[in-house]
């Protein structure tokens, strides 16, 4: 549905994105991940035809974004990072305006449906300026799906919402993903993990990794993280565990528990268990902990364990972890 090749964008002398290539298939929900300033918004703006790329090609539904901008825009629903609302209009008037711009037939019925989807039907006569941030976000989303677009592009759809609203919006997006192709950007990693079928990670404008959320964990690190607990003081077994071949990054996580990682591709659980027991401790628990996308992300963008085609990333100054949630 979305086909991006060699996408590069310069702002003056500053290169915002460099040679991005990716595809999004029909019906997929794809997360576009990266720290602040990674080039997510720039990429999305190019996809929606808001600005042209410096070089490279974007095709949506078979249409080139530059050559057939109107066809592409008809097909795309877009929620920009700053929700584009007119504060002096009522929710209904705003939706009506968008419906007219998009030449939607039976606009009133469609608006009712869409507002119901985002549970805003009871606020349709209220002024947008008086809505809370979460409601504004939902109206923005309603605007993006009004014309039943084949492709939905959502730039940080849950930013600034409270936890309850975040869950609501995520559920809406998941529902939308059943009928639409969705591409959403976020720097909140659990969000991508929950909502997306697949993630594309970029950093400093460059491609870092791309895979399904589960496969990404194993493929990129190949490592297992294991949780171990014993009867008694876990710090005593720490040397035993760390001296086991293949074990790295041992850390204490409680009085009677610790966590360690295995080197990529090695399953060290049985050796560790044998060593702990033969050292005279009571082993209570030994289980695999799945690495969160957050851990992977940090490793990808900070350490230099990078997949083959993104070696230049380590040249750029690294992002601070505070920038991410």
């Amino acid at each position: 549905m979305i086909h991006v090749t060699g996408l590069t964008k310069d702002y003056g002398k500053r290169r915002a994105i460099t040679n991005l290539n990716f595809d999004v298939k029909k019906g997929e929900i794809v997360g576009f991940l990266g720290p602040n300033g990674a080039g997510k918004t720039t990429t999305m703006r190019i996809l929606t035809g808001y600005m042209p790329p410096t070089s490279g090609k974007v095709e949506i539904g078979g249409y080139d974004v530059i050559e057939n901008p109107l066809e592409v825009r008809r097909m795309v629903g877009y929620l920009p990072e700053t929700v584009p609302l007119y504060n002096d209009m009522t929710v209904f008037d705003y939706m009506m305006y968008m419906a007219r711009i998009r030449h939607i037939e039976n606009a009133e019925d469609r608006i009712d449906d869409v507002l119901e989807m985002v549970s805003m039907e009871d606020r349709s006569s209220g002024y947008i300026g008086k809505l809370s941030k979460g409601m504004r976000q939902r109206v923005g989303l309603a605007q993006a799906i009004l014309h039943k677009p084949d492709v939905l592009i959502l730039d940080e759809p849950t930013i600034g919402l409270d936890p309850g609203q975040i869950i609501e919006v995520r559920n809406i997006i998941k529902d939308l993903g059943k009928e639409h192709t969705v591409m959403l950007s976020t720097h909140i990693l659990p969000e991508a993990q929950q909502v997306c079928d697949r993630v594309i990670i970029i950093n400093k404008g460059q491609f870092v990794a791309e895979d399904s959320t589960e496969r990404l964990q194993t493929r990129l690190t190949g490592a297992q993280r294991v949780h171990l607990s014993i009867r008694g003081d876990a710090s005593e077994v720490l040397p035993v565990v760390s001296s086991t071949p293949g074990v790295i990054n041992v850390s204490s996580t409680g009085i009677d528990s610790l966590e360690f990682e295995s080197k990529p591709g090695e399953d060290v659980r049985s050796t560790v268990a044998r060593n702990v027991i033969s050292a005279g401790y009571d082993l209570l628990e030994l289980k695999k902990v799945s690495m969160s996308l957050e851990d992977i992300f940090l490793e990808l963008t900070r350490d230099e364990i990078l997949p083959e085609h993104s070696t230049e990333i380590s040249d750029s100054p690294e992002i601070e972890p505070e920038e991410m949630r």
Partner: protein
Amino acid sequence: MRNIWTIGIREYKHYFSSPIAYAVAFVIMLIVGILFYVNLVSYANYGMAPGIQIVIGPLVTLLLFTTPAVTMNTMADEQKTGTLELLLTAPVRDHEIIIGKWFGGFLFILTILLASWIFPIILNQLVSPGIDQGELLASYLGLALMCAAFVAIGIAASSLFSNQIAAFFLTLGIIMALWMISYPAQSMGAGGGEIVRYLDLGEHFYSTFYKGLIDLKDVIYYLSLTAVSLFLGSVSVESRRWR
């Protein structure tokens, strides 16, 4: 065409929720009203019947200064609230956005002109045998055409800046320059002077419409000024994408 109408009507409605528009309408009605009263009294003292010019004269001068205030917001606001991104990613052509904005602003100025129609009506009651209807219609047609050009210049200037004040002064500057361009023309030679004088905004109004005459060349002048400004505005919106 449909998009222009949609954008224009929204823009027009938007004016009625903006304080600037009310301030402009209020200022125009107040000052024209005061001058109208003053003129009526002094004409009466001399025992003469005033013409429609006592309304049109002040109206032209006021519109010269207030139209930039009406248009300065149009694109700047969209930029600030992020709704420009919405329009530029909607299936709408760039020139449709600009023409739609112009249409909305022009409708608003026409509404003010319509409200000012109250003064000719009063005047018509006061003087006998009434005012010259031809002069009235020609003057208002001229005003409408001139305002079409003012609004178009304003929209084009506003599309250049995301700052309202900058848009205001650029618009005012262009209109004032076009207003006064015939002064330097007087010292120029016959050929060059003639061309420069043709560009003068006021010349096309005071020598014809104001006197109750309608000349096709003046109509064409204002329409082409409008068209050129709208074209430049569209180019500016398009270039915005490349920035």
